[in-house]
């Protein structure tokens, strides 16, 4: 137990920070309740998936700059597939979009492996390509989403046996993140592939010499990142009901949350829980600023400054780690 808490000290610290922020929020706005918490998680949903995508890639020692554009592409694809279709059509649209995300992510990995161009350039180029692709798929915001999908991200759980007071604090959106992460991340981390991802992230050469298939692992890591990005894109369509071909502010937010979540930007160290808690911390800061009736544009500035500071701090830590 002690060993566990030591290993997870960063994540536990973040969780404490989240609770502290929550208490502060209650002070600022005493009426802040379950309903507000549900809308907070709904707003945090695309961010959570974006950061999950970025985390997997960063753990493998890479970086994906095309994440926001990939979310835009998958979001418009989902919106187009579900436009004016029956509710059942979403049953095939969702797996299709997820497979599409995997393919796009894997394409990043394949291009990096084949061209030997650094990940940062390849994903930057892919960012342009995917932005263009999103515009080609859907030139202006539109499309649609199945009603039952839209219902999945709003409101809270109602379990027959559980009292209303508790179940109201478990929003659907939060459940969605937890289920998705459990379905993808836990089997992955326990598998050989998961181990290989951490291995190539900490030292590509050492991993190669120990017989880890570096190229295949990297491609799969980007592919899994693509799956999370597709889920992020889907949640965008689910919560707005339409698809927008313009990438949102998810790239910088994902990098900042990865760093804040205790994942080393150099790769190989960290987990997925930390960054996701970090997303909620960053969202809650935004909520507090809004509750304090700070101008939304000023909020953007403060948020940007926090993210830049966090990234700078993370870089400093990475530099320390390298020099020791």
């Amino acid at each position: 137990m002690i060993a566990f808490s030591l290993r997870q000290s960063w994540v536990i610290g973040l969780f404490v920070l989240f609770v502290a922020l929550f208490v502060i929020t209650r002070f600022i706005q005493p009426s802040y309740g379950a309903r507000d918490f549900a809308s907070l998680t709904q707003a945090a949903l695309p961010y959570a998936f974006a950061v999950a995508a970025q985390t997997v890639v960063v753990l493998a020692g890479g970086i994906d700059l095309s994440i926001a554009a990939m979310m835009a592409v998958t979001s418009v694809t989902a919106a187009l597939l579900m436009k004016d279709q029956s509710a059942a059509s979403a049953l095939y649209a969702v797996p299709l979009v997820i497979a599409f995300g995997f393919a796009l992510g894997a394409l990043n990995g394949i291009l990096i492996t084949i061209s030997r161009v650094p990940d940062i350039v390849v994903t930057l180029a892919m960012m342009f390509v995917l932005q263009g692709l999103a515009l080609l798929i859907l030139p202006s915001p539109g499309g649609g989403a199945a009603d039952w999908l839209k219902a999945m991200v709003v409101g809270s759980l109602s379990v027959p046996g559980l009292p209303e007071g508790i179940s109201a604090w478990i929003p659907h959106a939060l459940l969605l993140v937890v289920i998705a992460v459990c379905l993808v991340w836990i089997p992955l981390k326990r598998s050989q592939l998961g181990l290989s991802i951490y291995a190539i992230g900490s030292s590509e050469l050492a991993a190669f010499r120990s017989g880890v298939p570096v190229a295949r692992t990297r491609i799969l890591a980007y592919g899994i990142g693509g799956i999370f990005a597709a889920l992020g894109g889907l949640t965008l369509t689910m919560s707005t009901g339409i698809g927008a071909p313009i990438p949102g502010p998810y790239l910088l937010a994902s990098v900042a949350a990865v760093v804040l979540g205790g994942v080393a930007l150099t790769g190989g160290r960290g987990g997925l829980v930390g960054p996701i808690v970090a997303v909620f911390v960053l969202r809650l800061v935004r909520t507090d600023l809004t509750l304090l009736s700070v101008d939304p544009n000023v909020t953007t500035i403060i948020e940007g400054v926090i993210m830049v500071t966090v990234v700078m701090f993370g870089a400093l830590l990475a530099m320390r780690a390298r020099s020791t």
Partner: protein
Amino acid sequence: MSEIADTSPQPHLGRRLRRLMADQPIIPLMVLLILLCAVLQLLSPGIINPLWVANTIKFAIPLALLAGAQTLTMLTGGLDLSVGTVGTMAAFIMATQIGHHDPATTLALSLLPAVLIGLANGVGVGIFRVHPLIMTLGTGLVGSGILQVYQRTVIASGSEIPPFIVWLGTGLTYGVPNALLLFVPIAALIIFVLRRTGFGRQVYAIGDNEKASRLSGSTYWQVILALYVASSLLAAIAGLLYVGVIRTPSLTLLEPLVLPSVAATIIGGTSIFGGRGSYATAILGALILRVLTTLLTVLQMPEGLRQGLFGLVILLVTAIYLRIIEDS
């Protein structure tokens, strides 16, 4: 390795061609530019005339200035994605403040945010060692937030674009764009500094091998700081010039030029890994992109396809240059 290759009597033709491209990228780039013009002339005969050439140059100059910002930072293995915000800020502040202050004060006011953002980038990249891409993306975001707030405060006072800026941006004298008056000295200065001064040597040295350059006495963070401030100033000048071309200050004035400026620099043969490249070829890269854009417009290609094509061009060119460098 290269000396052995030099003394061999008849190197393979493909190898010689590659060496030429690596050593003198300006020649294949000129060929590419002429080729593109020829295709354009074929597709719509009569399009190429003195007025078209002047117009192309006029639109290429702000892009070339931004490509200058990218060249400076890319030579040390970096990139500046905040140029769009910086240039837009300079143009917007100039247009809204010219009615209240004399021209010199206005100019100083519009260049101030550029210097500040450049300093922030330089500190983040040079001292904290944040990846330049992430750092400049972040400061760009903060900058555009500040611009939004600023816009709210001046929304009532209106804006105007001084006639001099319009003259400089769009005017032609004897068929030659006036903007060249500003651009030629700046370009000459950049090329001179990079090629002939100790500072320029340090820039290449840091990009080539940071550790070795540090051991031989150059101070990494000072060079980086100077480069990012210079990059921001170039972006601000590009913004001031571009608002003279477009004639309406908007909050996203320069954003559409950011990605093309990166592409122009990479096409110009500057390595994104640093240490290799020149500004003269980046200017050619900007011209090539302008002609390419005209070509795509003539072909009536949608915006999305154009963006995608830019991305593919960047990837392809970087991969090709990588092969060439590895070979030589």
